[in-house]
């Protein structure tokens, strides 16, 4: 259990406040020009009319504009908002990279005003500088090491107060472990390597100070070792192609060339062996089985009858077999096989051949060849049940993986990508692992409890196997696998339901011909899900899909409460606004002539109230909902085309500003010292204390480094 309320509260509050703040500042940014301060207008115009290629002239113009703005600052409070973009423009003239970053940082820190937009634009410009970002990530790495150490100290102190020896020992062991064995590369490390490559491509290797160069070299070495380890593991799996991929990754670092060469030889050997094996497999010719000594005529007649699906001939052949059992094992085997197949085929043709496969074995139960007959029938039986056996194998693997998790803490789902991740972990094994037994017993107990209460191993593979078995036997229902099929469908429905996949669960139940009550119960859950989706997605733009689902619901569950709610939801969707949304303040800022009664915003519903955040921009005007007591009516106002054009521009600008407000910048994600309240129940007992949060890499491209 972990509580991290501080940061999350701050983030949520900021997320709530950002649009409000932007709306407040947005109106200023969009206001039409006013001739109230001609000196400032002139100064800004001069700045904008200076060519970008001439920094000295532009800087001169910017300085003049600043002076003019400052001279009228007391009279016009809004002028302060101009300083930030002016500074941004001045930074563009800066030739020194360090100086540019320092000034952008000051801008992002709010030294030129608290305006969110300018600060975010500056933060975005900072992020585009690979050197700045590389330095920050380097700082994060150092800080995270410190935070991990400090948290260990806190945890040890807390456990010592509790008198918990394991809790005291564990942070120490983990701390030593961190020093002794290297950590696998995380997304931040990989991003750092990429930035370093970019800097090198820009021809700036000298900008890295010796300490940073050392750390980058260590990262290269670690990365190379990791790639080599992955290549070796792939070779162990007899997968030379994957090994070659990892080896290419290792080669890029120009290190450990002996090891690289050694693995390359092994890869070539495995690839050659694979080619030879393939060639040998293709060269093999079928060898005729020795069938001397058996009655070819009899077997041929049986097979002919089987192929012709002649029920009468089959019955005759069966009688013949019973009257005079075969003497040669090959004859017997072929006869049993053909007979079993024939009976199975015949069972589909009609009642005359409706016999169970097991009957074949029973017919020969008293003969000396009974084991062979039984094997033949079992094999046929097994062929039908094979998909279910495969699903059973997966279940067994999952059980084994669960036990492995309980006893070792390792989770293996069979996913090859996970195998790679394991290789990365394995790369860093050391003698510290020998200390694991100290924590084994309590950890195993906790994991055992977890396994008993839930499913620590993902059941996706089991679901896939069950679905494959059901699919494989869908077109050939038969007595041999009907039971297994029903059981598989029931389990499939249960697992889908547990995962909240009610639609798939319903299909499985329908196919299993489950009782009506179970299906109705599931449909009710599905209906709840569809209706809830509609609530959460309202205004999110997924109206068409939602409408389709709601319509299905009304058709599938007519005359129910769910259907009534679905009809209501459909009506709401139909009445909901479809035009481009624009906040009233944005609209009034660019079109003050709009006929909006001030009384509509005075909080008194008797004369009508308008939602100031939700005005719709239609094709020729605007529309909004006017609340008058308990009634709400829709008001549409036509506007002049020139006004409409301005409103469209304002709506687009508002959309852009919201997008900027939502964007996460590195600068904001890493402001201040992150502290969290940690509470846990684990191997070291119960604990709760404040601790430092280690910094990760959270920018939008994180997924490309995982």
């Amino acid at each position, binding site marked *: 259990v972990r509580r991290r309320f501080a940061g999350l509260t701050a983030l949520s509050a900021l997320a709530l406040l950002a649009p409000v703040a932007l709306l407040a500042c947005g109106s200023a940014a969009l206001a039409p020009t006013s001739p109230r301060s001609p000196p400032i207008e002139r100064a800004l115009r001069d700045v904008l009319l200076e*060519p970008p290629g001439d920094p000295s002239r532009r800087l001169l113009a910017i300085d003049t504009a600043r002076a003019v703005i400052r001279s009228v600052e007391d009279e016009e409070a809004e002028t302060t908002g101009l300083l930030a973009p002016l500074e941004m423009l001045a930074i563009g003239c800066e030739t020194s990279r360090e100086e540019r970053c320092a000034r952008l940082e000051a801008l992002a820190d709010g030294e030129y005003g608290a305006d969110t937009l300018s600060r975010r634009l500056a933060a975005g410009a900072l992020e585009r500088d690979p050197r700045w970002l590389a330095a920050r990530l380097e700082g994060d790495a150092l800080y995270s090491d410190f935070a991990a150490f400090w948290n260990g100290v806190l945890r040890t102190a807390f456990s010592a107060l509790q008198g918990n020896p394991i809790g005291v020992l564990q942070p120490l062991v983990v701390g030593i472990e961190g020093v002794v064995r290297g950590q696998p590369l995380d997304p931040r490390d990989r991003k750092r390597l990429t930035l370093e490559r970019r800097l090198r491509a*820009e021809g700036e290797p000298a900008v890295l100070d010796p300490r940073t160069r050392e750390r980058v070299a260590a990262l290269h070495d670690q990365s190379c070792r990791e790639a080599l380890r992955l290549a070796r593991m792939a070779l162990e799996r007899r997968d030379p192609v994957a090994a070659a991929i990892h080896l290419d990754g290792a080669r890029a670092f120009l290190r450990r060339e002996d090891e690289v060469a050694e693995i390359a030889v092994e890869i070539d050997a495995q690839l050659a062996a694979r080619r030879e094996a393939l060639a040998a497999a293709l060269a093999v010719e079928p060898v005729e089985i020795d069938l001397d000594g058996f009655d070819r005529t009899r077997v041929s007649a049986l097979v002919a009858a089987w192929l012709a699906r002649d029920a009468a001939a089959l019955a005759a052949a069966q009688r013949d077999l019973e009257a005079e059992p075969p003497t040669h094992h090959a004859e017997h085997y072929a006869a049993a096989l053909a007979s079993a197949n024939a009976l199975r085929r015949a069972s589909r043709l009609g009642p005359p051949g409706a016999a169970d496969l097991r009957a074949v074995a029973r017919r020969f139960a008293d003969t000396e060849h009974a084991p062979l007959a039984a094997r033949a029938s079992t094999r046929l039986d097994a062929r039908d049940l094979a998909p279910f056996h495969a699903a059973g194998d997966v279940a067994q693997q999952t059980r084994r993986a669960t036990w492995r998790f309980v006893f070792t803490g390792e989770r293996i789902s069979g996913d090859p990508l996970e195998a790679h991740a394991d290789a990365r972990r394995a790369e860093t094994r050391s003698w510290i692992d020998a200390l694991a037994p100290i924590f084994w017993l309590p950890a195993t107990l906790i994991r055992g409890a977890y396994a008993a209460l839930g499913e620590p191993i993902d059941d996706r593979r089991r679901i896939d196997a069950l679905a494959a078995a059901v699919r494989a036997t869908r077109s050939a229902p038969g007595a041999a696998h009907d039971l297994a099929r029903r059981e598989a469908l029931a389990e499939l429905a249960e697992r889908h339901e547990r995962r909240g996949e009610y639609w798939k669960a319903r299909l499985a139940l329908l196919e299993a011909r489950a009782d009506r009550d179970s299906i109705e119960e599931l449909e009710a859950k599905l209906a709840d899900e569809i209706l809830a989706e509609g609530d959460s997605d309202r205004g999110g733009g997924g109206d068409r899909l939602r409408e389709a689902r709601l319509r299905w619901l009304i058709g599938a569950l007519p005359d129910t409460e769910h259907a009534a709610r679905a009809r209501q939801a459909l009506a709401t969707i139909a009445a909901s606004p479809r035009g481009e949304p624009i906040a009233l303040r944005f609209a009034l800022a660019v079109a003050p002539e709009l006929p909006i009664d001030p009384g509509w915003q005075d909080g008194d519903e008797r004369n009508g109230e308008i939602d100031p955040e939700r005005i719709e921009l239609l094709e020729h005007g605007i529309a909004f909902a006017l609340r008058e007591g308990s009634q709400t009516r829709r008001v549409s106002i036509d506007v002049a085309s020139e006004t409409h054009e301005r409103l469209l521009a304002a709506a687009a600008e508002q959309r852009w500003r919201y997008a900027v407000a939502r964007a996460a910048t590195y600068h904001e994600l890493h402001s201040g010292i992150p502290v969290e309240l940690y509470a846990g129940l684990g191997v070291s007992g119960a604990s709760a204390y404040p601790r430092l949060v280690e910094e*990760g890499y959270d920018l939008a491209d994180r997924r490309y480094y995982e």
Partner: protein
Amino acid sequence: VTRARGATRRVPRSAIALHGAVLAAFALPGVAGCSAPEPSPAYGPYRTLLEVVAELDATRDADLYRFDPPRDVSGESLPRAVLSRLERIEVLLGDPALAPAIEFARAQAHERLSGFEAAQAGYRQVAAGEGPLAAAAAAALPFTTAMCELTRPLQDPARPLDVLAPLAQRREELTKLLDVYADDPRVCLAWIAIERLDVRLREYLYRNRNAIDDGTRRAVDHARDVIAAHAESRRLLEHVLRLGDFLAELARAQVAAIDPESAEFDATRARNAIAAAAEVYAEVAAVDGAPEREEARAGLAALEALAQRLTGTPP
């Protein structure tokens, strides 16, 4: 419960942020509750124009051939965002004195997007006026005009191979520009134009491979040439990925043309084609920090499934 390193998302969690948020939360009812403010007075559009020009200016000398094009903080392509914002500002501003500034910025943004015709028109318009911007626009014009001429669409050829000569000639002329404007940061745009020509030829050869003698080999060879010629390009991974796509498509075509269950099917040949494509994809899949990596991984997974289809084993 021990947290796995890097397993959770980190968000800003600072005491400062918390205090700020709490204070702001108290202030929120005040902000939200008050009626809409009076429309603010002047300077707004000026400020917005300053922002736009400042952002564009900050990336003026970016090497668009070698490095990813700049994006604004919301993730949109910066020149595109600039163009749409300039259009809005023009509507809102209504100050004819700033028309040259807007037109100049627009021409720069168009140029960044290789829209040389629009850029040329913009520079010409500004150059026809007076003031320092006019001189800057006049200085920018020769390169833009040359690029405009050399990036005009070529006519579709009557016969498949007729396109090769004009493409080669155009490439040569663009290559000459590289020397003439070696000191201009915009020379990266000429490199980009050359790369686009090479890509066009690559796609053309591949698309028409059946109509050209030895077409498949030529198409694949040219795809490899593009990779070698543009080893420094920001699109390098894309070029490698495309070669992988070609090889994968050839492997798929073999499987589609001849049923793998039939006697004529050459399993070894199909496997070789799959392995060749997989090797190329693998090269991209091993590179961190690029969306192409995910595409290559998906390509590898698809090839693996194709190979399994050949062997008949269930995935």
